[in-house]
């Protein structure tokens, strides 16, 4: 028993050293990242200041407590005193605690005022959280795109080895210029999400019906990885944030390319599409945007995510099919894709799901073209 007690005492004495040695290291594997912006550096400094104040108070209080436990143990013949109050001691430590809090509050307020500034940026980007991906829109240039997780399902299921940036990689990162004040306008499309990039110390909730603001100014190029931090449903862990900061010239080239692409996309709507072209485009759209819920084999996860295989709608009712894609389904996870994607994308994915999994052979196999979607939109506008 004495031996066991010795081991336990040893463990208790050594454990704070182990833990604190971990936090001493400023490596971001154990501690908050210092980040790359002025704000993130001040926040890191504030964090360490408060941490050390807590450590000092903790060491004082715990030393007195453990010393008392040791010194006044009955087994060594300690006899209890019988005092039970001391007015000035009570007043003293109440005042001391208040002063320490004021000492913490002053720098906290300064950093807060610095971080909280919603003046307009040189570049303004509208960030919209969707279940379960981010949409970025450059307000000055009116171009935008979705940013999806690019880690494969096989990696998540453990069928293939996990890559270096497992769950922290996207198909298209947000691109921002360095040394420029960038303002983020953050909102949600369906439920509440939260957009977080630790290296910028920016975390703002993306709330439907609200537009929150945050800003950053990144001094040097780099890739910065973050996450969604408000529970938003099944794929909450699978909608990372990746931001690429680049020099101004590279950024301008990126925007020019995006603008050209958007123009090309608009041209595609009037083009006459063959079934095969629509199928090919629809298949890749399906894999990126639909398979998460309806599954790659189209069978969904009933009853939450209905099967598309052999359903009345996908086989025989192309009008209803278009309506669901355009308007979404109230009270379910099915979003109104028509608001966010082009006519070509919507038409191709409808055509794909009406043909795939032998829906085409068993059903009417109607081909839906971008022109049908335009017609649908015009009908609604009337």
């Amino acid at each position, binding site marked *: 028993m004495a031996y066991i007690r010795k081991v336990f005492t040893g463990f208790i004495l050594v454990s704070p050293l182990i833990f604190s040695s971990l936090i001493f290291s400023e490596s971001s594997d154990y501690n908050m990242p210092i980040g790359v912006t002025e704000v993130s550096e001040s926040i890191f400094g504030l964090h360490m200041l408060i941490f050390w104040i807590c450590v000092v108070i903790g060491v004082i209080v715990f030393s007195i407590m453990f010393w008392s436990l040791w010194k006044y143990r*009955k087994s060594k013949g300690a006899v209890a005193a019988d005092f*039970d109050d001391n007015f000035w001691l009570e007043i003293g430590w109440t005042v001391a605690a208040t002063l320490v809090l004021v000492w913490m509050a002053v720098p906290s*307020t300064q950093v807060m005022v610095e971080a909280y500034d919603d003046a307009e940026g040189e570049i303004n980007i509208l960030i919209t959280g969707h279940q379960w991906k981010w949409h970025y829109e450059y307000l000055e240039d009116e171009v935008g795109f979705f940013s999806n997780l690019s880690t494969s399902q096989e990696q998540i299921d453990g069928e293939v080895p996990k890559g270096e940036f497992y769950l922290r990689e996207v198909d298209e990162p947000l691109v921002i210029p360095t040394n420029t004040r960038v303002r983020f306008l953050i909102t949600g499309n369906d*439920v509440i999400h*939260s957009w977080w990039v630790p290296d910028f110390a920016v975390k703002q909730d993306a709330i439907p019906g609200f537009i929150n603001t945050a800003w950053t100014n990144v001094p040097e190029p780099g890739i910065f990885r973050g996450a969604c931090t408000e529970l938003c449903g099944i794929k909450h*862990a699978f909608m990372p944030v990746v931001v690429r900061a680049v020099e101004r010239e590279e950024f301008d080239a990126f925007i020019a390319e995006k603008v050209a692409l958007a123009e090309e996309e608009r041209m595609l709507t009037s083009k006459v599409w063959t079934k095969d072209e629509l199928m090919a485009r629809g298949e890749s759209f399906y894999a990126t945007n639909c398979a998460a819920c309806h599954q790659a084999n189209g069978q969904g996860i009933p009853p939450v995510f209905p099967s598309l295989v052999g359903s009345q709608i996908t086989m025989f009712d192309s009008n209803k099919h278009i309506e669901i894609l355009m308007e979404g389904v109230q009270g379910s996870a099915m979003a109104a894709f028509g608001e966010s994607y082009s006519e070509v994308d919507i038409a191709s994915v409808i055509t794909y799901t009406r043909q795939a999994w032998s829906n085409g052979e068993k059903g009417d196999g109607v081909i839906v073209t971008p022109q049908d979607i335009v017609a649908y939109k015009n009908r609604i506008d009337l």
Partner: protein
Amino acid sequence: MSTVVESHDHGHHGPAKGLSRWLFTTNHKDIGTLYLWFSFIMLFIGGAMAMVIRAELFQPGLQIVQPEFFNQMTTNHGLIMVFGVIMPAFVGLANWMLPMQIGAPDMALPRLNNLSFWLLPMAFGILISTLFMPEGGPNFGWTFYAPLSTTYAPSTVNFFIFSVHIMGVSSILGSINIITTIFNMRAPGMTLMKMPLFVWSWLITAYLLIAVMPVLAGVVTMMLMDINFGTSFFNAAGGGDPVLFQHVFWFFGHPEVYIMILPAFGIVSHIIETFSRKPIFGYSSMVYAMASIAILSFVVWAHHMFTVGMPLAGELFFMYSTMLIAIPTGVKVFNWVATMFRGSITFETPMLFSIAFVALFTIGGFSGLMLAIVPADFQYHDTYFVVAHFHYVLVPGALFGIIAAAYYWLPKWTGNMYDETLGKLHFWLTFISVNVTFFPMHFVGLAGMPRRYPDYALQFADFNALISVGAFMFGLTQLLFLFIVIKTIRSGKQAKPEVWEGAGDLGLEWTLTSPPPYHSFTIQPQVK
């Protein structure tokens, strides 16, 4: 049923036999026992869910459960631990101890007491049954933020709402009973400022419950209306406000946090004075500290919402008001340490749990202070740092308080001493595993792992494996606690009335025999 009741001898008031004793009992000890066993069973159910969570998080990737089920586990783990374990355990302790501590024969409203207990199994039966329904149970987190819990919820959310309503009714009835008992049934001479601290802590807690449970009922009713009757309280598309949900929820939620810790403050105060053999230091400042914590708890709620986009003035107000709470809380810790100072200390199991409570709850308090600093909170918010914080105050805080109380009063309740060696083994295994589980969560949180994630990036893998090992050890260790409790009920050294050396002067409960008579005090004692 009535034959059973009539068959017993009215000359000797004792419990009825069989199931009817428990179904129809109006006795404060029987109801206390029911509450305690109920929360013990719930501890293992909620704990099993935590084991599922930790098993899935043992390694990166999805191995054991799918995210859909994982979310149901995190949600129900939280709901069950908060409403099914910590709160009923404290009510059970109140039922057992309040009449004995204030010198009363029973609670003031015994039939109400029976009802408030039996509502609970109904509420949790409904809640847990949703897990077996085709759409699955609640999956939107125990904080059930709208619109994830309204427009986007599974239809079983209606069962969840009903169950929360029943829990709320149960808590309100229980609180009415406790307040009535304390104000009307104290022994002659026991003025308010002579009440034991556990009684004080429960008086304050009961007021908090009556103040905020209706707010919780209000917010779930608004959800019910949004889901079923076409209103738009929280639906932005209909002109509603999703952030309103969070304001109303946390106006309930923050006082709720103190509901889960104040009774533990009372318990730990008694245990520390008993085993330091020295009266509690600063009794009146302990009472005032609890009252100030309770009052402040109503003006700090939005510190849970620093990232929703409040104006600067709002952020600063809630930062300052939250920091203020550190003052009364600090005073309590200083008073406990001052009670130990120059005492004559022994280290029985309840004392070990109480010392661990003071040390580890203080660590939870420090991380709480860090979280109050708004700019830093932008980095901590919704990460494992928060998970570490509230588990430090709820597990080595509230739960250690409950376990300490069980060891402290079990000899009084059963008349048998528990096995001290096993008790100490239970303490050390629990103490080590609780720290192995929750301390590394600070690091993964600071390094950037968000909470409520079924899968995570590779740099968090080592710590998560360690956390899971700690969690499994913690879970298994509590089976030892179950064994010790059953063993004590069945056998053990006969306990004296005062149980602990010198405890006879510390409270009225130690003047009764162990176990105490079925109706605690039939003649009111006189308090000097």
